[in-house]
């Protein structure tokens, strides 16, 4: 079993046509963890992946692999990595030849190559597919082969650039589930570029959000997704900006927070009297009509709010509600929207648990 590696980039900058495509102060990939690099199209994610993968030379900055500085010219360092991209770019030939490509470059013996190729194909759910033509595969099959081609090398760093972006939704979710399982079992240090939050949530341990070449948020998934670092990040994540409040008291790990007259509760280690900011994920918020008796539940937080905005968001709707200075978003289905007869200005009750509130000291 190959040991997972740490990779750290510092002060990395890459300029295209006078504009900084990447300008990252610091980013660290921790051993055995999957970091999802999330951001809109053109934010510099793929360029950063190419730099981390020693495929593209940065204009400035350093890349360290296990504390040792490495560069594009360092092929030995590059040999510890493997990548798969959005378009699979399989070579002409059989599935087996494709998966064996990196092993041949590493002069692995024929017998071992055959054994490892078979195991890798089995790992991605394509057992015995060695002799099939690589150019007749469906998008999902091709992505599985591309992943097998990377995994077969037992890399210390795995780089995946939007590997599922070009697949249809059903195939995408099937592969997201499989990728998440494989990455979690392999425990290889992985950089996973995606623009899809759901995909990032499914596969990643940590997440970094990129905007115009810069990292605007970086940390464990729960932290980054639970409490937006700034207004732009909040909008990108489909949330409202973080809310500010003051801790009135903490008891048994539960913080009682005052937000301009609205009382909220959160599970957090904060000190009484401190100023905090907090956020709630839209999917953690339940909405009820204003005049119904809400069922008894463990949700500590209840708002008597009004609907401020309703926006379609894929198959669901994003409903922004506000009570005083507290403004949060909820995600509800089309059926629920119709059932609650929501429109801007409609009074509603909102419930969410204390565990759903992410708090940070300001």
């Amino acid at each position, binding site marked *: 079993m190959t040991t997972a590696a740490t990779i750290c980039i510092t002060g990395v900058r890459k300029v295209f046509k006078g504009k900084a495509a990447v300008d990252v102060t610091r980013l660290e990939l921790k051993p055995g963890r999957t970091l999802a690099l999330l951001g809109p199209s053109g934010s510099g994610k793929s360029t950063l992946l*190419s730099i981390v993968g020693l495929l593209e030379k940065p204009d400035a900055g350093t890349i360290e692999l296990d504390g040792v500085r490495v560069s594009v010219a360092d092929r030995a360092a590059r040999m510890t990595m493997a990548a798969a991209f959005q378009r699979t770019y399989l070579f*002409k030939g059989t599935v087996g030849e494709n998966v064996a490509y990196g092993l041949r*470059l590493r002069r692995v013996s024929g017998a071992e190559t055959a054994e490892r190729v078979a195991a890798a194909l089995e790992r991605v759910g394509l057992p015995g597919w060695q002799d099939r033509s690589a150019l*007749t595969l469906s998008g999902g099959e091709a992505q599985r082969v591309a992943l097998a081609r990377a995994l077969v090398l037992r890399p210390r760093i795995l780089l995946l650039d939007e590997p599922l972006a070009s697949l249809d939704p059903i195939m995408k979710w099937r592969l997201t589930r499989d990728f998440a399982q494989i990455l979690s079992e392999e425990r290889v240090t992985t950089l996973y570029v995606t623009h899809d939050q759901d995909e990032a949530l499914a596969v990643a341990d940590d997440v970094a959000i990129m905007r115009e070449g810069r990292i605007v948020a970086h940390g464990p998934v729960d932290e980054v997704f639970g409490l937006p670092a700034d207004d732009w990040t909040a909008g990108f994540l489909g949330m409202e900006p973080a809310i500010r409040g003051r801790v009135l008291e903490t008891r048994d790990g539960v913080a009682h927070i005052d937000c301009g007259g609205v009382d909220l509760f959160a599970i957090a280690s904060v000190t009484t009297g401190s100023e905090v900011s907090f956020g709630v994920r839209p999917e953690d918020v339940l909405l009820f009509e204003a005049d119904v008796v809400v069922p008894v539940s463990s949700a500590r937080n209840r708002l008597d709010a009004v609907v401020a905005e309703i926006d379609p968001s894929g198959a669901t709707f994003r409903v922004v509600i506000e009570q005083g200075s507290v403004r949060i978003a909820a995600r509800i289905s089309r059926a629920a929207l119709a059932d609650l007869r929501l429109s801007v200005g409609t009074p509603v009750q909102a419930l969410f648990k204390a565990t759903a509130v992410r708090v940070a000291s300001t």
Partner: protein
Amino acid sequence: MGIFVDAFRGGLDMLVSGATDVWSIVLVSVQVSGAAVLLALVLGIPAGFVLGTKRFIGRRMMLVIANTGMGLPPVVVGLVVAMLLSRRGPFGKLELLYSQPAMVIAQLVIALPIVAAVSAAAVSAVPRELRLQARSLGASPWQEAFMTLKEARMGLIAAIAAGFGSIISEVGAVTMVGGNLAGKTRVMTTAIVQYTRMGDYGPALALAAVLMGMVLVVNILLARVQSSAERFEA
């Protein structure tokens, strides 16, 4: 039709009897065109790879030159090479005019732009990302180049066929720089012209048959390589 029947009989007799004259002409053709094609591939494919994959100042101009070179009239090539190798020319001291090396040089000048331009088109059709993918799996620059050429193999086979086809049937340049000297620089095309002028149709037809056969065999071989390359591209 008698003229064809008589010529066919005469030509067949010469081939079957192993007339030294005919087979020595064939041998010179194979030596000259074989060397020219080989050199054109050795120089043209790497040149095409660089033109098709690298970005550098002057690349566009070099592509224009290569593409223009594909349409070079052989007699113009013959004229220029003859002048360069003539006693008063810059390379006159080498005394290459009317020799097989002179013919190889002329044919190389004809075939090289064709091989380079067709190779450049073939490798530039291989996505840049495929090279990036190879690099990301650990390929060295040489391994990356080899992979690119392998991916472009159908186009490279076309480059070989086009380069070979452009010189094996060429007559103008080889006449001008080779001089059509019997046993020395006489090749099939120049000999066919000479025998025809003399009204000696038998050996002309025999050589024409060998020339056509040679073109056919080479193209069959290339087609077989091409179809084996196509095996996994359906």
